């Protein structure tokens, strides 16, 4: 029994510390899009550093979870990165806080630099199955896509239009694993968030337009999706202050510095 005493005391202390933390604080939760999650975490950290009375929890889960939890109240702010919001989100207040380009990427060894929207569609549908049909070497194309329900995938399919993904396309469950797969396979093609491009993969021009920040802001590059914050009611109180902070020049700079495109 004597041995348990310090553990018991520690336990009590921890509980009191936790209780003390909650006192007098406004707490709210953000959940949803994994593409925006790291940005939301950074913004929340910066905001909490200056507003010690606010505590913000950021969770992932995907765009569908963002919409669902904003609807159910499980999170005060939902995050979603979809071109068209589904009907469940119609009753929610939506605010665009950033834009994200979707880059179509291939292995750096690939000679192809540019594809038209039609060619991208045909490749993902399986109608074009060899790189030589689009000006590359004679090798079968390995198509890599995301899992059903992914915000990046539905945005990609909505912008390219008429995609019925070919049956033997590889499916990876995150932007990061798409990047690894394409970096490892010289004949593969995939798509991922613009912010995650590095030198292991090569972004393609689409209809002659680069997927650079400048080209996205100028509205020339077409594979762009908005990132929404979703709220059940119009924002008020600390939540409104936080959203104002995200939309302020400081918040937008944080977003841009880390690879997304500012909302305006």
């Amino acid at each position, binding site marked *: 029994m004597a041995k348990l005493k310090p553990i018991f005391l520690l336990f009590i202390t921890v509980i009191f510390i936790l209780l003390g933390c909650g006192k007098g604080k406004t707490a709210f939760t953000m959940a949803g899009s994994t593409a925006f999650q790291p940005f939301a975490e950074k913004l929340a950290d910066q905001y909490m550093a200056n507003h010690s009375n606010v505590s913000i929890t950021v969770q*992932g*889960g*995907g*765009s*569908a*979870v963002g919409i*669902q939890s904003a609807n159910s109240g499980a999170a005060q702010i939902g995050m979603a990165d979809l071109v068209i919001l589904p009907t469940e989100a119609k009753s929610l207040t939506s605010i665009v806080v950033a834009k994200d380009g979707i880059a179509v990427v291939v292995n750096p060894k690939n000679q192809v630099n540019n594809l038209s929207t039609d060619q991208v569609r045909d490749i993902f549908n399986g109608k074009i199955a060899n790189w030589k049909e689009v000006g590359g070497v004679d090798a*079968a194309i*390995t198509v890599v896509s995301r*899992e*059903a*329900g*992914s915000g990046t995938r*539905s945005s990609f399919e909505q912008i390219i239009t008429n995609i019925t993904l070919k*049956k*033997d*396309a*590889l*499916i*990876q*469950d995150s932007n990061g*694993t798409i990047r*690894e*797969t394409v970096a*490892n*396979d010289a004949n*593969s093609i995939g798509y991922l968030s613009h912010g995650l491009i590095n030198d292991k993969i090569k972004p393609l021009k689409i209809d002659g337009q680069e997927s650079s920040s400048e080209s996205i802001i100028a509205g020339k590059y077409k594979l762009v999706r908005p990132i929404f914050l979703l709220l059940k009611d119009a924002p008020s109180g600390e939540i409104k202050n936080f959203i104002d902070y995200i939309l302020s020049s400081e918040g937008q700079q944080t977003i841009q510095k880390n690879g997304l495109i500012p909302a305006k």
Partner: protein
Amino acid sequence: MKLVGEKTVKGILGTIAFSAISALLLIALFILNEGLPFIFKYGVREFLFSSDWQPHLNKFGIFPMIAASLWVTLGAMIVGAPLGVAVALFLSEYVPQAVMRIIKPTIELLAAIPSVVYGFIGVMVLAPIIRNSFGGPGLSLLAGSIILGIMILPTVISISIDSILAVPQSFREGSLALGATTWQTIHMVIIKASKSGIIASIILGLGRAIGETMAVIMVAGNSVNIPTSPFNSVRTLTANIALEMSYATGLHRQALFATGVILFIVIIILNSIASVAIKKRTIKK
């Protein structure tokens, strides 16, 4: 005073034991409750035998996943079972007991390697080898089978060794005394006497292979596709649940639970077969 302590401990241990069992019951009930209504609403035949899995169009046919799970598991058996049984026979019959006591725990360490590490090795080493020597994407049925075959080795080896060592020494001596060589003793006496235990070890390995998720997601490519060659990419039942779980809502979510029901049933059947086989062995002894 001492007696009271005894009773308290019994009570505490009893509660803990019961909560472990009730956790199993709760999980089973939860999965069945979420998944079964969907299966009946959607149609058992349509769910099991349609190969159209398009959640956004409300089409939920899991036949490609069932086929993939069975193929990957079969592949893992082809890779893992002969290898595992061979290692078990070698260690128990050809190697001195002292050496075996060092090697067996080392092999069992294989089971302590997290599955994500197996997956990582599969992606980084195995997939490029398959891609470069056979073509295709590399992330394939074959890659999944090889990785799973290695992952089930510790299960197959350690249970096989246990059942081979359970064969009475007099059997071996009798056979050798009749002039049989070690190999003749092994295939005519030892394997026959420990057959049910070896089969049980393979079935338990099979259960592990069919339930493995992380490594398979990483190496099998995950296309919803009925495989026509070992170099095709496939998606298993477990991978299907894990990949789409975080996004699924409504019908799609229920369909994933229903996938879990099918998986649950398959694993229960396999484990029952294994425990019957193990029981047979103990009765024989």
